[in-house]
């Protein structure tokens, strides 16, 4: 039965699709030298989608639409806005990329993937969820391997595809078992059916493990993280940035909703996740230490950040969920800033080895400051968003008496400080070979300048005036189902 609410519920998705169609129709008629404008079109379009949705499609209260396929609530809406923002920033980063910038299809793939993520955040049904995950992943496989003449990129695309295919098959197997146990694919009834049915702790535990494989891959949690460094390094950098932020946040969006809806009575999953969180933080940070390539370092750091965010999930409380949402928000802005700064640098210099960042602050003081803000925020220093995110996540853990997990998190953040500061040492302290930085400036093109300024201000805003942002995160996390 049709109601206007149904349209509002999927307004961002409808607009995204419209934007994609416009892009597809308009772009082939442009001359080759104007093709870069597809990036401006995508960026402007995404901003328009963002603002129109904010104006018109704000959910009133939580309800399911389309026969229980989707849930129209603040949680999904908040995540959708995050994805749209990340996609807008990524489209700016793509514009001056040698291989992606002048190809309409790369923007189209970005939009398709964003569409999938929006659906992931609002899915209320296992079938819908699986379709959304695939809609997200398949364009990303293509984007990762977009540079056909580059071995590393094709390898990255193929590796991502193989890992993704296997883990999503396992995830699907978990879904099918859940359906087998309960006879329903609807998340709302699933939890009740599991609770009402006979005690199947062992079996449910098995299913939880299967689901963790699939979602652990998306959020690159240990031990399903092996793909991340290779893919981030090989894939075009804007795509790597998108993978490490929006795609990871989408994984968390599903993880929170699925686990809190389906298994509230099976506390065993929190202890499994506690172990996963510990491993993820520790291994991510330890492996980041010896890296010499900045993209690989960021890959391991993003693994570690998934671990910190998992602490909030393990806390299994309202505050815990809100802390995860806020953490992801701060993390998206921060990591996009970090990847953006790396891109702006390597576009000019053609390298992303850490040692080549020597003298960056003399070559481009503003890019140096952007790196400073990004890496200090990643390290969890005020006045940047990363600090607030980390404190609130730890607060949620201490609230529930998870002192051990909080202390592990703290030890890890100390390791992390070391390698983040190490990068800044190259940026600020070391000189270029020949010490003639003045003759090697790093010009920023307009898309990079816009994106970096907005993201840097955003990171500072999230770290200082965090009141409203946390309020919205809390509102989103209040009712998941």
């Amino acid at each position, binding site marked *: 039965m049709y109601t206007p609410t149904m349209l509002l519920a999927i307004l961002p998705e409808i607009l995204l699709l419209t934007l994609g169609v416009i892009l597809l129709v308009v772009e082939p008629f442009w001359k080759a030298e104007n093709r870069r404008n597809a990036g401006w079109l995508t960026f402007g379009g995404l901003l328009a989608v963002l603002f129109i949705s904010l104006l018109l499609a704000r959910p009133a209260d939580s309800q399911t639409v389309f026969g229980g396929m989707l849930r129209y609530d603040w949680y999904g809406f908040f995540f959708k806005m995050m994805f749209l923002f990340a996609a807008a920033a990524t489209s700016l980063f793509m514009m001056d990329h040698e291989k992606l910038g002048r190809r309409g299809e790369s923007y189209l793939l970005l939009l398709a993937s964003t569409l999938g993520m929006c659906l992931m955040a609002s899915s209320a049904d296992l079938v819908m969820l699986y379709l959304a995950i695939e809609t997200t992943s398949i364009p990303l496989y293509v984007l990762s391997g977009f540079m056909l003449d580059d071995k590393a990129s094709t390898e990255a695309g193929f590796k991502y595809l193989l890992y993704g295919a296997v883990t999503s098959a396992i995830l699907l197997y978990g879904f099918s078992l859940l359906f087998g146990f309960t006879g329903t694919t609807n998340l709302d009834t699933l939890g009740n059916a599991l609770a009402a049915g006979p005690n199947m702790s062992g079996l449910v535990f098995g299913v939880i493990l299967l689901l963790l494989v699939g979602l652990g891959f998306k959020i690159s949690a240990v031990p399903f993280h092996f793909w991340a460094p290779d893919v981030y390094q090989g894939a075009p950098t804007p795509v790597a940035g998108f993978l490490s932020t929006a795609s990871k946040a989408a994984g968390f969006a599903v993880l929170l909703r699925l686990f809190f809806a389906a298994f509230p009575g099976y506390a065993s999953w929190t202890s499994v996740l506690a172990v996963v969180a510990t491993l993820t933080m520790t291994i991510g940070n330890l492996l980041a230490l010896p890296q010499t390539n900045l993209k690989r370092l960021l890959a391991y750091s993003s693994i570690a950040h998934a671990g910190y965010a998992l602490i909030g999930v393990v806390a299994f409380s309202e*505050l815990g969920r809100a802390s995860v949402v806020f953490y992801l928000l701060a993390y998206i802005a921060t990591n996009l800033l970090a990847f953006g700064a790396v891109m702006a640098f390597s576009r000019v210099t053609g390298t992303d080895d850490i040692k080549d960042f020597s003298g960056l602050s003399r070559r481009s003081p503003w890019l140096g400051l952007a790196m400073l803000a990004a890496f200090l925020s990643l390290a969890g*220093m*005020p006045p940047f968003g990363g600090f607030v995110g980390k404190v609130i996540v730890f607060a949620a853990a*201490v609230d529930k008496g998870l002192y051990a997990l*909080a202390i592990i998190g703290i030890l890890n953040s*100390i390791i992390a400080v070391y390698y983040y*500061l*190490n990068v800044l040492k190259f940026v600020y302290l070391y000189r270029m070979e020949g010490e003639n930085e003045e003759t090697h400036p790093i010009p920023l093109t307009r898309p990079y300048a816009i994106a970096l300024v907005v993201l840097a201000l955003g990171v500072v805003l999230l770290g200082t005036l965090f*009141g409203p942002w*946390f309020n919205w995160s809390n509102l989103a996390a209040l009712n998941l189902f």
Partner: protein
Amino acid sequence: MNFPVLSVIVFTPLVAAVLILLIPADRKNEVRTTALVAAVFALALSVWVYAQYAINAYTGYQFIEKMTWLSVGNLHIDYHVGVDGMSAPLVLLTGIVMFTGVLISWGKDDPHGPTGIQDRPREFFAFLFLLAGGVFGVFVSLDLFLLFFFYEIAVFPMYLLIAIWGWVKTREYAAMKLTLYLFIGSVVALIGALAMYWTAGQATGVYTFDMLKISEAQQAGAFNGLVNFFGAQVPFQVVWFLPVFLGFAVLGGIWPFHNWSPDGHVAAPTAVSMFHAGVLMKLGAFAALRVGIMLLPDGAKYWAWLIMLFATVAVVYGAYIAFVQTDMKYMIGFSSVSHMGLVMFGLSTLNKDGLTGAGLQMFSHGVMTALFFAVTGMIYDRAHTRQIPELGGMIKPLPWAGVGFIIGGLVSMGMPFFSGFVAEFPIFMGVWQVMPIAAIIASISIVITAAYIMNNIRRVFFGEVPANLEGHISPITALDKVAIATLCLLMVALGLFPWLMAPMIQSGVNSILTLLGGA
């Protein structure tokens, strides 16, 4: 609402940092002028706060500003600032060090080698002011979250300042060591603070990071419960006092966690050494007092003996190590460990004399080390060595620096009529009441301090100027003289007129004693 003077003090350096970054990099003098204007402004306001602080009135906090920062569910964070008798002198101290630090860093492109900061002064002053804003912020914070927020802001610029502008030989090592030590300390304390937050909230039903509320909750008995500590039931305050106190005291250079401090002093550029030893170490001692002793007084009573033990070792050991140094900066660095040990010594007594002395010592030591490092920096910039045996006769080319160092030395030795005496005497009186043996052991340090200070003065400032330095020592600038004169006058003034500061600190101590249950 009154003029929000404390916020203006805190945000002056932060805003100035942003403004300085907006100035083109090659306009070095505009950068310095902006920095100086901001520093003078902040100093003037902190003098005003100091002068306006009403000692005889209500002994609580004054100049209070409070705004809700975040209030969601069980999470409540305020922007809440105010000063009491303990923190008002420290705000003034920060203003003074910031002002003199800018003067010292001005320097000039001398033919014999540049003095002050000539490489990227824009970034230097921006980071230095970020640090200063963080330091001001910690001293005025009345909210735990806000305190951590500013505390971290005060820590990370140190890394950049030391690593970029520091002494080439050790700067990378020292900067990383310092940052890791301080970061470990602060996050350990953070866990303790979060534990306090939830425990106080559960007991009273009011969840807030507001330290005044947490203190009320503590007085109402919220922290009297037991916690499970590896299977044993241990009082809450006993468990959490040590992580919180020691976590902060790392920055106060407490033995055995002092190791980062001399390395940091040596590697840092002059103004940063001044900040580091002058105010940053006070930050640690102050936060340890504010969060550790004031919020967990029973824990403080339980562990006072351990703090006193650490402090006694620091006082004597620091002085002894300082005695055998040949590098002037290492000597002053270890003398800072020794003098900050006296602050901890005073704190550990938990009585009126000891705490008052600790408060005075924080101010006196801050001014004194700032002066020491300023003078050492001036000598190093000109002689390109800090090795005591390689120097001599410096009083002839640099009379201002020599006189300044001698006055600082007299303060350091605790001579009557100088601020050091005013501070150290009550500390020893306080310790004598609690544990006379500790006072006797620690008093050895006075003799050692006198020995190394006199030795240093004799060998660096008197005797013959070494042949290779003859004629290479250019005179110091007028700005340097202003800085030296300001710092010297303060120490003499405080030594001659202790009533300028002692009653204010006593008013702060009184409220701490109330928390500790009379005494």
